[in-house]
Structures are given as C-alpha cells and as structure tokens.
C-alpha cells in the first residue's frame, strides 16, 4: 500500500509535468517532496514556472496563472486515477478570454472524455462547450428551479 502511494505520487508528477507544458505552452513544473528522506511522511510541494518567468514563491503567481496550475494538477490526478465526476464552480472566473478559449476549453473537452463534468459558469465561451446547459432560475423569489437544454444528440 506504501508502494501504491509512491507509484501514485510519481505517476501524477509525470502527468503534471507534461500537462503543464501543454497548458502553459512551455515552462516547467513538478511536484517535490518537502522531505525527500522520508517520502512516506513528507508533505508534497508544487514547483510551477510559466515559460520565461522565474518563480520564487507560488504566491507570486497571478490569479489566472494559479488557477491554471491548480486545474493542471487536478487533471493530472484524473489521468492517473479515474474518478466518476467533477464539480467545477466558476473556475473560469479568473481566466482571460484567450486562456478560456485556448486552454480551459481544450482541457474540458479532453478530460470530459475521462470523467463526467458539472461546470458552473457565467462565461459564454464555456457555456458553448457543453453537451447540455442546465439553467437555474428563481422565478419565485428564493425558490430555485432547473431547466435543461441538450445541445447535442446523446448516443444511447
């Protein structure tokens, strides 16, 4: 079971390093153990550096950059261990138009083949990606109702 943890850590690390280069069109990222002498006890840290930049502390990353790094790690974990569904609540809020169109959209389309995604969003581009749109309304104040619109034919 300890071997499984080490394997998980190394596989996810590999996925994270590769996916980051796709998401950021370059740059470098990897996971590292706080205490390499003690891998089973050690906490896990993230090194993430967008192309051409130097990052001294992760808190220096911008809002949009941090969001993309976090999503990259989430999807790196999914690539290793299948999970049935994800709930993403307004994760595109800090992203600029180019990142929503070129990066986030591609990630969602790719990974929704590996898991079911329920994505809450105010963004028109994100909405256009869905197989279906679920509109939540409050016609009667304080009371929610849901209406769904299927955008694609769903094969049996």
């Amino acid at each position: 079971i300890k071997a499984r943890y080490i394997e998980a850590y190394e596989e996810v690390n590999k996925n994270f390093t590769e996916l980051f280069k796709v998401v950021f069109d370059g740059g470098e990222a990897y996971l590292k153990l706080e205490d390499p002498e003690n891998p089973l006890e050690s906490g896990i840290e993230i090194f993430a550096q967008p192309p051409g930049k130097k990052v001294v502390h992760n808190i220096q990353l911008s809002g949009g950059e941090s969001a993309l790094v976090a999503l990259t790690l989430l999807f790196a974990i999914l690539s290793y261990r299948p999970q049935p569904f994800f709930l993403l609540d307004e994760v595109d809020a800090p992203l600029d138009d180019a990142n929503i169109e070129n990066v986030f959209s591609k990630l969602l389309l790719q990974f929704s083949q590996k898991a079911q995604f329920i994505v809450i969003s105010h963004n028109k581009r994100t909405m256009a990606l869905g197989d279906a749109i679920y509109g939540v309304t409050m016609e009667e104040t304080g009371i929610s109702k849901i209406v769904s619109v299927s955008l694609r034919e769903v094969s049996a």
Partner: protein
Amino acid sequence: LKLRQLEVQGFKSFVDKTKIELKEDLLIVVGPNGSGKSNIADCILWAIGEQSAKSLRGAKMQDVIFHGTKKRPAAGSAEVFLLFEKEDGQKIRVGRRLNRNGDSSYVIDDSNVRLKDIHEFCYRNNISVQGSYLVEQGRVEKMLALSPQERKSLFEEVA
C-alpha cells in the same frame, strides 16, 4: 460510474421536489447570481456524506434545510437522491435525509445504511470522501493553497 439523475426536495433553495436527468458528460450550469447553482454542488456534496456544515456554507447541518422565504414557510426536512449508473448499466441510488430536529438517514437503493456505508460506496467508486472532486466557488487555487501535508493526504486517498 456516471451521475444520471438528481432528486432534491427541501434542500436550500430547492424547496419543491426537483428531478433532473443528467444524461451528458459535460454539463454547464448557468443562471443569475443567487439563483441556486452552487446549491446544486452542495446537494451532491451532501448526499454523498459531507459532514462539515461549514463546507456546505452553514453553521449547523440543519442549515441545509429550506429555511423559508418572505412568502413560504421553512421546510421540515431536506432530502437528496443521486442516481448513479455503472458501466454495465446497473443503477445505484444514494440518498440522504435530514429533518429539523436532527434526525438523519442515509439510503443506498432500498436499504437504510450508515454513513460508513456511504463512504464505502465512495471508496469503491473512486469518489473522494475528502471532496477533492469539487472545486468550490472562489477556491480554484485550492490545490496550490493547500499545505504540503494536506496535499499529501489527498494523494494518499488517490493511491
């Protein structure tokens, strides 16, 4: 495993019995501010065993029960049922109920079960009991903001 149907009644702003089919793999939830989108995420989180009222944006667990509006009285209980479908077509219904005096029950298909059975269902189906399938509103940077030890326990759950 796929989530195929959501049935809600009395949970936060979903006071009336609401049943929605979730046939697709990429579902976008939209609507005005305050309409109830994040409440849907809370439904799912709650139904599969979330124990922290704070994670559900409340002070105590009964805060998830519809607390009334200017025109409607509070509900006496909340219930959420999730209908899952396995790859082989088998359907599994997971549910939770809670009423105002704190009585709560969990259901898998037609049997009453305990919370640990819900967690067992999660383990068997790779649903994170720590809730790492959820990226909450305003917390997209969470993965980066976690402490190294917290991130480790997430990886342990994955392994």
